[in-house]
């Protein structure tokens, strides 16, 4: 009995030793042990993994997007038919498109929640204003990815979204030249497709590299929700945080699989110009009632206002205090803004479809 147990221990030690030799060899060449730096324990909570999960969602979007580009045709006369072909004629096409669609929704929700978490915990405060600014840029790029993705499916909703985009381009005067259907020698849809698959993902990648470098440089912000003041917070290795993030990522992927299998997205009929018979997707629905009031320019002003507010957060809330209870004016202001967006979304979802172009 003893000898069996000893043999088992020896095998385990040998195996462990082999693993360590492998890791050491890898580390010698790639320096992977550099990832074992300490991070505060609270970094392992789900609320502090939302940024990492957004990045995982982005990777899922890139992977499924590469699949979809093999079959999508960005020519306006064939785009709709190519999406129908992806859904009906391509093996796993409906499923992969479903993951891409639900992944986009997940990315919007995750980055929104991440921004909220950072705001509530005061993690944007000095010296992390730059990290926050890159985070806001990432949110804006995510919005651009979502909008352009909405357009390139090229159904009625897509054309109406693009028409609004063209109108906004006109509002921008000379600066809106790119959005003109007559600019360049390629249809606007095809140009927007390039933006969706190349320009915005590249910008997102650059911004996330800068964001992560700043997170590493400044370290994780201290949590305002710890009660044992005075004691230093225990730390964990960053690799442990990465492992946990991988676990959350697998759960996210599982949820996307289920949604893509059971409720994959449909597609509306091919676009008919000159009419407005659809509403935007829910992440953009909050601007719909604003359009009712002041026309298409409402989209521009609402977007400018929300991102200006986000960029101004570190300026408006400069004090050193991170605890939400001691930053009540900011908390009340944020509640009003988020509440208004939710209320506008609900109102936009329930109101009648209206024409906004040419108002």
């Amino acid at each position: 009995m003893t000898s069996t147990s000893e043999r088992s221990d020896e095998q385990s030690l040998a195996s462990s030793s082999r693993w360590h030799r492998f890791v050491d060899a890898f580390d010698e060449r790639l320096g992977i042990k550099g990832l074992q730096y300490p991070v505060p324990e609270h970094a392992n909570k789900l609320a502090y993994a939302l940024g990492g999960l957004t990045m995982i969602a982005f990777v899922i979007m890139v992977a499924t997007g590469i699949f979809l580009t093999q079959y999508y045709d960005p020519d306006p006369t064939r785009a709709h038919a190519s999406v129908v072909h992806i859904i009906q004629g391509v093996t796993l096409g409906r499923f992969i498109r479903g993951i891409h669609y639900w992944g986009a929704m997940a990315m919007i929700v995750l980055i929104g929640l991440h921004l909220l978490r950072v705001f509530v915990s005061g993690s944007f405060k000095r010296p992390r204003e730059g990290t926050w600014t890159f985070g806001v840029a990432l949110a804006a790029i995510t919005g651009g990815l979502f909008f352009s993705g909405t357009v390139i499916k090229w159904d009625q909703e897509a054309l109406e979204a693009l028409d609004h985009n063209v109108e906004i381009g006109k509002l921008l005067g000379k600066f809106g030249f790119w959005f003109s259907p007559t600019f360049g020698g390629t249809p606007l849809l095809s140009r927007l497709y390039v933006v969706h698959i190349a320009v915005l993902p590249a910008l997102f990648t650059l911004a996330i590299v800068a964001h992560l470098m700043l997170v590493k440089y400044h370290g994780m912000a201290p949590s305002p929700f710890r009660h044992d003041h005075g004691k230093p917070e225990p730390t964990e290795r960053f690799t442990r945080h990465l492992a946990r993030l991988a676990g959350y990522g697998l759960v996210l992927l599982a949820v996307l699989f289920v949604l893509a299998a059971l409720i994959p997205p449909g597609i509306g009929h091919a676009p008919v110009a000159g009419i407005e018979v659809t509403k935007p997707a829910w992440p953009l629905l909050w601007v719909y009632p604003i359009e009712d009031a002041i026309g298409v320019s409402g989209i521009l002003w609402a977007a400018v206002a929300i991102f200006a507010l986000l960029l101004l957060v570190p300026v408006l809330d400069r004090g050193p205090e991170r605890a939400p209870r001691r930053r009540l004016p900011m908390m009340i202001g944020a509640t009003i803004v988020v509440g208004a967006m939710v209320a506008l979304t609900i109102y936009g979802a329930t109101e009648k479809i209206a024409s906004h172009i040419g108002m």
Partner: protein
Amino acid sequence: MLVLAAVLVVGAVSATPAFAHGGATSESASEIVLEAIAILEVHPGPSAAVDDKVRDALAAEDQSGVQASFVRSAGSALARGDIAATRRLLEQAVGACPDADILYVADQRARPPCVAPAHAFTLSRRSVGGTSEVVILVIAGILAVGGVAIIRHPRVRTQAERGVR
């Protein structure tokens, strides 16, 4: 276009009885849509007759040759009083080609032939179904269990979760 208009005017005359009776569901949806277009050709303004035709077309048993989503959109446009859009959507519903010149196609290339009815597809949210769906759901289950196992693994849990202080 002239031929289409002539056909529609003839259709308008023959459509009158159906219009008078508020729609006949024994007709095919495509016939009813053509009648609605014909009414609009003769009376290009908001009317209960066209509204009835739209409802009848959606209720007709024989839906062959008609894309119901276009008919529904036409109903929405009619409710808003947008007659031009109603007409265009009804034409699309029975397979008319989309306006290629509005699709932001650069003028230097030849206009492609009409691709109807492929353009007219509307696909609702329908689950993947069949064996594929079962396999996907099983894989999703494995991924979820794997994810939770990693999160709950003793080497990944935090000191507080392990009760170490």
